[in-house]
């Protein structure tokens, strides 16, 4: 597939970075979103190519989750355009929105498992409700998916509240991939996990995305995770993408904001909103 060669690298020969010959899987253009007077997204542009893994890095509260929720249509953007496979989705009706939603899988920051349902039903949810699969058949698929994320059959019958944080993340990952989505969003997949579990999740993400041939858009402030799962990295700051490039260029981006972020320095152009006495 020529598309693969093209996007895996991110900067194909003879083309300026960020331009694509074919339609990108997901394109956000000049996105604005404010809550009351608080401006969160301020003209954000982002493109993710087919079968590419893009990681957006940025500090807490910079609007990473809001960006994903706008792209999913869970939040309505104030202005700007959101295109999925070239189709404008900002003005879709209920039915078309549900059709487009079927292309997505999402791993929520807090796992967001349904606590009234056992683990297997969580994983099988999209299959039973969305694809109308029979329950016993869906359960088999669910157990398969749980095995794919390294969870034993016995876990299937437990309830989410009986699981540890790392296990919940893995169940959430299994749920996100169960319907074989074309685009998967990962919202801080490793936040709050110990470094070893974080690396397990990273490996699972890479494996799942590869197996599905899916497009992945992840957001994180964990640089180890970003370096591991990204083909391309973009940095969000004050509601805009201020830098993007292949993961290999992250250490010599020439961008002081990126440098400060990846080295985790308190001094630099990014000023945290902390009151100094």
């Amino acid at each position, binding site marked *: 597939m020529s598309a693969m060669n093209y996007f895996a690298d991110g900067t194909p020969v003879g083309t300026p970075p960020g331009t694509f010959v074919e339609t990108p899987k997901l394109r956000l253009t000049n996105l604005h979103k404010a809550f009351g007077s608080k401006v969160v997204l301020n003209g954000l542009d982002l493109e993710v190519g087919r079968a590419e893994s893009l990681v957006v890095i940025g500090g807490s509260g910079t609007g990473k989750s809001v960006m994903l*929720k706008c792209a*999913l*249509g*869970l939040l309505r953007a104030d202005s700007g355009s959101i295109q999925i496979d070239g189709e404008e989705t900002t003005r879709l009706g*209920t039915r078309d929105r*549900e059709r487009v*939603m*079927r292309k*997505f*899988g*999402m791993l*929520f*920051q*807090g796992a*967001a*498992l*349904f*606590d*009234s349902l056992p683990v297997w039903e969580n994983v099988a*949810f*999209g299959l039973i*409700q*969305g694809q109308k699969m029979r329950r016993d058949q869906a359960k088999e698929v669910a157990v398969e998916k749980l095995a794919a994320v390294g969870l034993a059959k016995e876990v299937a019958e437990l309830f989410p509240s009986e699981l540890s944080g790392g296990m919940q993340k893995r169940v959430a990952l299994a*749920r996100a991939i169960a*319907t074989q989505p074309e685009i998967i969003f990962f919202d801080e997949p490793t936040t709050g996990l110990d470094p070893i579990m974080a690396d397990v999740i990273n490996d699972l993400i890479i494996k799942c995305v590869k197996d599905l041939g899916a497009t992945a858009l992840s957001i994180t402030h964990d640089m180890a995770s970003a370096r591991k799962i990204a083909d391309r990295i973009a940095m969000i700051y004050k509601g805009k993408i201020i830098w993007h490039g292949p993961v290999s260029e992250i250490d010599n981006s020439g961008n002081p904001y990126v440098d400060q972020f990846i080295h985790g320095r308190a001094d630099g152009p990014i000023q945290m909103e902390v009151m100094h006495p």
Partner: protein
Amino acid sequence: MHGFSRSLNASGPNAVNRQAGAGERVSHLQGCHGGSMGFLTTTGRAFLVFLEATGRLMLFTSLAISHCFRPPFYFRLITRQMIDIGYYSLPVVGLTALFTGMVLALQSYTGFARFQAEGAVATVVVLSITRELGPVLAGLMVAGRIGASMAAEIGTMRVTEQVDALSTLATNPFKYLVAPRLIAGLTMLPFLVLVADIIGVFGGFLIGVYRLDFNPAAYIGRTWEYLEPMDVISGLVKAGVFGFVIALMGCYHGYQSRGGAQGVGAATTNAVVSSSILILVFNYLITGLFFSR
């Protein structure tokens, strides 16, 4: 963004009377109105906020109703809600009705004995229970039991992003969460009230026969003598409306909750208070509708 509480915060005491209590719990948490604002500005803003809240509720209601009629229907969830509302509320509604019927018999006897009209006790009991007390008391009890749990459950799902997760799994939250509850509320409350009617009248009968020494056959005869189908039917219509209102308020406030445990707590309070008040308001309106001279 609780519709009612918000409108209270931004408004002066004038607007508070209109929907007393709907969010009094929350208002002191968010508090603080601009003191220097002119009277016109204050009332104007209060009015706008009130309109906005009303509009939001109307929009929610129409969306929720429209999803009740469009497939897919989640029969498994509808059944579960029906069992939760109809079956598990039986003890509390039954006990309420039993004691209400009993106390009605005692009190009306006390009153009627003063002008030698003791014979009317059975009639008064059955009319009060079927027309008024059965639906209202059952409604208020269920509002506390079911309205609160709906708001808490949906509110928790909301703040833990489970509602968003539903959407990403190609499931409409209105169809999956709201519609089954509305349908179950609308259908199960009349059933509960019918049971409450029977138990309440039976409570009156127990007191009438064992405490007030009525002849059992005569008491039953008096119960049926002046009872008209419309008495029972108007009570059941009320019950249907109350059931819908309870479920709607539970879902609406749960759906609007924001910001963690405190938001869910406020949603629960708002759901119970607003559905209780709406039950009393609709009770009056429906009584007026069925009332004829």
